[in-house]
């Protein structure tokens, strides 16, 4: 007895947090309490959201019938870092929650990459291309009961273009007129923006969700990133209302009963949960065990497990991200296009795609993604041709002069290249190792330098150093493809440092061209030129793989993202 007591005394203190944790959660949902604790702002905001929800539920009781109900659980490996702060979104999962779940953009893109109305019911570009006028819906409300109007759009634009906000995608508005002169509230539901004529003027409005002016209008631009709105108490206007957020654990949203019928009305599922499960094997287990309904971003080696499972289905969608090796042309060794072409020709890229992606990918010859209208499936890049690669290197003056298997130039400098990559990314590590093995066959010696993610980015993007010969990375375009950052000038992302007047001219023309028929031949010439110059060895567009449980219906493989049709997801009554 005494021994048992001693053990209890020893064990109980460690259980204290558990007991307190359970007790402390009390009657109100704990995360809401946490939100309240974020200060008077959250206190007031969440109180109004509760009142709005109660009122909306009373006015629009849950529809009868079996279609509505249930909780859908999505699992992702990353936290939605800055939450619903549209000015500081970090990754694609977070942005999609802003665009499709909790907030709304003015427009959305459809399957044909054409813009369709969302918060804006219509828009008009003036004949001279200098004015863009949006007409907003008048039946969209913030989840605290305020109506969403033109002042919210003006506020969002002014903050996004305010340098103090440090909106990372501010470059998307570079052709818009900055400041108060750039935006005019015509009436409560009409807003006009001024700009210089350019292509795809709506693209920034597809990306940036509209933010509530009545809640954030008094917050200085410099303080928006630290404001509790984003992660503690977001008040959206989209199909799902924010309920709670547990850091690094989960986000919970509830169906918005007041979402306009004209936009499809209330979502089918009652609740939507985003769970953070950082380890992919664990997440896969949760999917197969039925504890998670949708696993976004499966690894290719996990795809077959899902495909062969009984309770889940594999979804395969085209993706925007392409993986490449950038060759630093500032270095004399890589300044000659023949050397860069030889490097690409010595690599069996098709075999690499098959080995790394197990077929879930498309060979890339340029950065134009397969879903883009300018993508040409028939366009071939440089074929795998080791003999051709050797001949090109010979022509460029790189010959094995001392018989050690590595080529040297006339001065005896060996063709050794330092290739950097993110050490935490196993796929890129394997790719770099395959490159090393294959390039050695033609006498090029790669030194692989794995770096911590931030260190790699710093080394790759600092225009003053660019301390690398090769860089293995993935890049993701917006739906509006503009490669100026990558292939012109010497900005942070001009990894190869390409200085080619023709490419510069084509990029400038493409960014200003609004007519796709006129732009198409320009895109063709641009891609031909990039293949000639080979500033990058393009490897693949990895397809986006997701696993969805049989319980959750309506989820589609969509290159626009997993949450595009979240409103239409449903769970059969027998599976709730």
């Amino acid at each position, binding site marked *: 007895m005494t021994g048992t007591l001693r053990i209890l005394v*020893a*064990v109980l203190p*460690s*259980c204290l*947090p*558990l*007991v*307190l944790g*359970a*007790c402390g*959660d009390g009657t109100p949902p*704990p995360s809401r309490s946490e939100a309240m604790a*974020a200060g008077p702002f959250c206190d007031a905001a969440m109180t109004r959201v509760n009142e709005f929800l109660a009122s909306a539920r009373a006015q629009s009781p849950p529809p009868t019938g079996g279609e509505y109900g249930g*909780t859908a*659980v999505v699992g992702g490996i990353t936290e939605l870092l*800055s*939450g619903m702060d549209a000015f*500081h979104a*970090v990754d694609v999962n977070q942005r999609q929650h802003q665009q499709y779940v909790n907030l709304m953009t003015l427009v959305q893109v459809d399957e044909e990459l054409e813009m369709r109305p969302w918060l804006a019911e219509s828009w008009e570009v003036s004949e001279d291309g200098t004015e863009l006028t949006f007409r907003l819906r008048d039946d969209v409300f913030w989840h605290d009961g305020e109506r969403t109007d033109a002042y919210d759009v003006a506020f969002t634009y002014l903050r996004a273009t305010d*340098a*103090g*906000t*440090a909106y*990372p*995608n*501010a*470059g998307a508005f570079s052709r818009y007129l900055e400041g108060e002169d750039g935006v005019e509230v015509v009436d409560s539901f009409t807003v006009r923006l001024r700009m210089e004529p350019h292509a795809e003027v709506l693209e920034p409005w597809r990306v940036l969700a509209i933010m509530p002016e009545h809640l954030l209008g008094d917050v200085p631009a410099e303080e928006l*990133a*630290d404001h*509790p709105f*984003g*992660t*503690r108490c977001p008040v959206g206007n989209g199909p799902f209302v924010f309920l*709670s957020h547990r*850091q*690094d*654990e*989960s986000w919970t949203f509830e169906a918005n009963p007041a979402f306009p019928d004209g936009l499809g009305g209330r979502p089918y599922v009652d609740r939507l949960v985003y*769970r*953070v*499960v*950082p*380890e992919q*094997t*664990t997440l896969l*287990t949760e999917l197969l*065990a*039925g*504890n998670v309904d949708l696993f976004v971003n499966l690894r290719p080696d996990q795809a077959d497990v899902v495909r062969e499972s009984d309770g889940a289905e594999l979804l395969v969608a085209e993706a925007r991200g392409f993986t490449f090796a950038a060759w630093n042309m500032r270095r004399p060794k890589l300044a000659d296009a023949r050397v860069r072409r030889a490097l690409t020709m010595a690599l069996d890229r098709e075999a690499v795609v098959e080995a790394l992606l197990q077929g879930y990918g498309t060979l890339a010859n340029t950065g134009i993604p397969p879903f883009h209208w300018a993508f040409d499936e028939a366009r071939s890049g440089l074929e795998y041709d080791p003999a051709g690669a050797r001949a090109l290197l010979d022509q460029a003056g790189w010959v094995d002069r001392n018989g050690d298997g590595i080529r040297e130039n006339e001065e005896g400098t060996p063709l050794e290249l330092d290739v950097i990559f993110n050490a935490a990314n196993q796929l890129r590590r394997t790719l770099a190792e395959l490159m090393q093995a294959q390039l050695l066959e033609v006498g090029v010696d790669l030194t692989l330098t794995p770096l*911590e993610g*931030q*260190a790699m980015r*710093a080394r790759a*993007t600092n225009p003053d150093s660019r301390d690398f010969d090769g860089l293995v990375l993935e*890049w*993701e375009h917006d739906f509006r493809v503009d490669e100026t*950052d990558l292939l012109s000038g010497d*900005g*942070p*992302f001009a990894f190869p440092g390409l200085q080619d007047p023709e490419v510069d001219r084509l990029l400038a023309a493409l960014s200003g061209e609004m007519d796709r028929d006129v732009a198409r031949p320009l895109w063709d010439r641009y891609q031909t030129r990039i293949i000639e110059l080979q500033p990058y060895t393009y490897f693949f567009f990895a397809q986006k793989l997701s696993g969805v449980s049989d319980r959750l219906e309506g989820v589609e493989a969509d290159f626009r993202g997993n949450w595009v049709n979240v409103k239409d997801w449903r769970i059969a009554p027998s599976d709730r």
Partner: protein
Amino acid sequence: MTRFLLRRLALAVPLLLAVATLLFVLVEMAPGGPEMVWMGPGMTAEVQAQIRENLGLDEPVTIRYVRWITSVAQGDLGFSHSRGQPVAAVFGQVLPETLLLTGSALVLAFVIGIGIGVLQAARQNSWVDHGLNLTVLFFYSLPAFWLGILLILVFSYGAQVRWDWPFHMPASGLRSIGYEQMPLAQRFLDRLWHMVLPVTTLVLVLAAGIARYARTGMLEVLRTEYIRSARARGLPRRTVLLRHALPNSLLPLITVLGLYLPVLFSGAVFVETVFAWPGMGKTMVDAVSTRDYPLVLAGSLLFAVLVVLGNLLADALYAVADPRVRHDA
């Protein structure tokens, strides 16, 4: 003893100041910065500079250092930009979860590890000793994350999907979906149920190491003359072992306990990652990868304080437990 403790505490102050300075310098030297988190199309050098300015990183390093060290001395650990709240609030959220996980694991690991070690020593060179030796070495050499995944595959996925066992364990997280709607008792059980696999993982790995220390300590004590005298006096074997030998054999484990104290607070990053347990370890790794300087600095400093305190505690416990050790002597 009091003088000893005060002297050690006084010495800890300059030590911690030096550690804090070193930490600041190391963080400052690390390549990259918080602005890199948003790296992507359309991001200009001006935006990067503005982010640094908004975070106060545009000021000279000396000013930032003085400001930081002064704030810390006043108890203000700064603001975590990656989590949008004060660092103290972040610790307030993750520390209890870490303590719950590692505290439970440490207590159980010490109890089980000591038990195994005692049993092995008592049955030295028997098949029980050899069998436990093999088992302990097996778990001691296993990486915790691998063991964690294995347990998930067996007790969560396998039990639920493959073999249809009458019970299965949650694979990840702190609680179930719908936790808020549960009654209090069910919440308690739900949290307890979610602890089983991560705590078991840690216990298996930690207990194996502790058992090795305990066995060695016990064997040394069993060879001493006073144990021989106790046996000669005809005391029962159980009494000799548990009353006379065990307390003295635990002395080396005080050092181990002192060393484990920082682990108690710093968490177990691999186990936290595998089981989606939002604790200190994972938080610190995320803070490093997002270059959340205030969080990295405060967390590292906290660990340094715990190392100092852990060692101090071990020394003090030694003096209490062993009359031969007197620090004031």
